């Protein structure tokens, strides 16, 4: 008797707990997704009708006009090209550097191993700061150039350590036997390590691509007045910030005004937001199993 009452009491409290967990997690899911669905709905809604407000997750007067209209903004077309280009080039350069450095410092017998690891690790804790970096870019002649988007970020210590800890988990015997067969270090890297380290490389490729695609501050700082080198995020920033006059204040005094940053209707802004966001949202769920592993490895080791 006492046994049954004990069991039922336990399952009763467990059930309450289960309900509580489901409610909280559902709340998180809604809070996360609702803003995106709302933006999507407004972007497909007639821009004059949107002013009335009250649109939730379905458009009230469906139209594609907003999307058709934003493709006439020249800044967005250039921005799209530059953003795509920097994402591709930046990711490739980052992958080459991270995989080569990670391979070399994972080799126990490499005599510069310790020195290079420390040299890299220090960069994670100390940085010169905004102005010394700005002056350096200017002295290197990188102002008003495409190179300023991709060159500074070629080596990332964090990415190197993520790949390194993955390579460490590959049996060393594979490299040893290849060496006995007469393979040199580059062949081992190219033929053995690169194919096996694909999960780690996929992880950092995602980090690099997202970082490049989402960057806007370097455009603002180095190429703000050069319309030929504008990026998509920077264009979106100008459009979004154009609502409240004086938004951001003095920081933005050097932003030139052009066709895209006159105050745009809400629906136009939302359509641009969607165009900027969608490429990444399509890619990330497929890479989920890789980056979860990569994040975990990187955090545990470094």
């Amino acid at each position: 008797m006492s046994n049954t009452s004990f069991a039922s009491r336990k399952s009763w409290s467990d059930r309450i707990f289960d309900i509580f967990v489901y409610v909280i997690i559902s709340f998180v899911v809604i809070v996360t997704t609702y803003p995106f669905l709302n933006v999507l709905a407004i972007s497909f809604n007639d821009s004059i009708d949107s002013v009335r407000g009250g649109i939730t997750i379905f458009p009230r007067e469906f139209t594609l006009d907003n999307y058709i209209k934003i493709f006439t903004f020249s800044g967005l077309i250039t921005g799209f090209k530059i953003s795509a280009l920097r994402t591709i080039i930046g990711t490739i350069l980052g992958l080459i550097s991270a995989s080569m450095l990670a391979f070399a410092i994972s080799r126990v017998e490499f005599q510069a191993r310790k020195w290079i690891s420390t040299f890299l690790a220090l960069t994670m804790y100390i940085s010169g700061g905004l102005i010394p970096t700005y002056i350096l870019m200017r002295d290197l002649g990188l102002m008003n150039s495409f190179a300023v988007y991709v060159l500074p970020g070629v080596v990332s210590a964090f990415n190197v350590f993520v790949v390194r800890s993955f390579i460490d988990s590959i049996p060393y015997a594979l490299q040893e036997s290849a060496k006995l067969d007469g393979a040199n270090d580059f062949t081992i890297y190219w033929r053995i390590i690169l194919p096996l380290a694909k999960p780690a490389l996929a992880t950092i490729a995602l980090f690099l691509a997202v970082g490049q695609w989402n960057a806007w501050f370097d455009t603002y700082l180095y190429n703000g007045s050069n319309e030929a080198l504008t990026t998509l995020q920077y264009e979106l920033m100008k459009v979004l910030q154009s609502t409240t006059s004086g938004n951001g204040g003095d920081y933005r005094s050097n932003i030139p005004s052009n066709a895209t940053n006159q105050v745009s209707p809400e629906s136009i802004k939302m359509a641009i937001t969607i165009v900027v966001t969608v490429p990444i949202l399509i890619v990330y769920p497929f890479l989920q199993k890789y980056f979860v592993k990569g994040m975990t490895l990187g955090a545990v080791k470094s």
Partner: protein
Amino acid sequence: MKTATALETESSVNQPEPVRKPKSSNFWKTFKNQKYLYFMTIPFVIWVFVFSYLPLWGWTMAFQKYKPARSFFEQEWVGLEHFKTLFQDDQFLLSLRNTLAMSSMGLIAGFIFPITFALLLNELRLGIFKRFAQTISYLPHFVSWVVAAGIVTKMLSTENGMINAILVGLGIIHEPIQFMAQGHLFWGIVTLSDVWKETGWNAIIYLAAISGIGPELYEAARVDGATRLRQIRHITIPSIRPTIIVLLIMSVGNLLNIGFEKQFLLSNNLVTDYSQVLDLYSLKYGLGMARYSFGTAINIFNSVISVVLLFTINGIFKRTTKESLL
């Protein structure tokens, strides 16, 4: 005993010359053997030197009256003058206060929310819903701060903003609140935006740590009649403690490096007293006014304090918990 020592000293006196010679030729021999490894690393080491270490050389600007047109040897040295100006500037104290406030709030929220989220997610029994919730929770991490700030501004706006609509609908407030125009709300808005964007992502590491806990612990607890809440308190949380501490040390080291993107994008003229962090201060009063030396002094202050904090916290943790990162 004595002879042994004598022999040893004698041999150590005689050794150096013949030992050093093969050692250095060994170095070049190994260097030749490992030439591919060197080819693959040296270009990037130079790269890191240029883009990560050369800016540190730029710190000398803070002690000069830096003029871009002059070479390094022609600069006029002024000692600590810029730091004196800095410490006497009201804007500096304001920026330091804002930086510390927002980073501490972010630090605390950045632990409580992801840990709670990971613990709750782990309790979900339906595998499909768990995976779905997890995938959704990463979503905001991948959008830029430009987009996130746009969404936050939209949700909080007085014209058709969702938050105001809900609050008015529930009768909690009668008039929509101008959230973005209230200085004293700015810190909270930044912190909650960060929570919205990064909670799911930051929970990844805790979820991984939780999944490494042996199921036998929970089975034993269930046999003893422990409720799920007690299992969380006495098994799950103690098991992920080391992970929490390592991440805590790392975040404290970055306390002052909170970035400025969100503050830059969410701020407006009405809230600058609460939104201006050290980096924005150096951007506006240093770079914006071409006072490069003064701005560099701000950056140095920022970096040095971060490193000092990192070592202090690491030292404290080392002494109290035997966990260390460095």
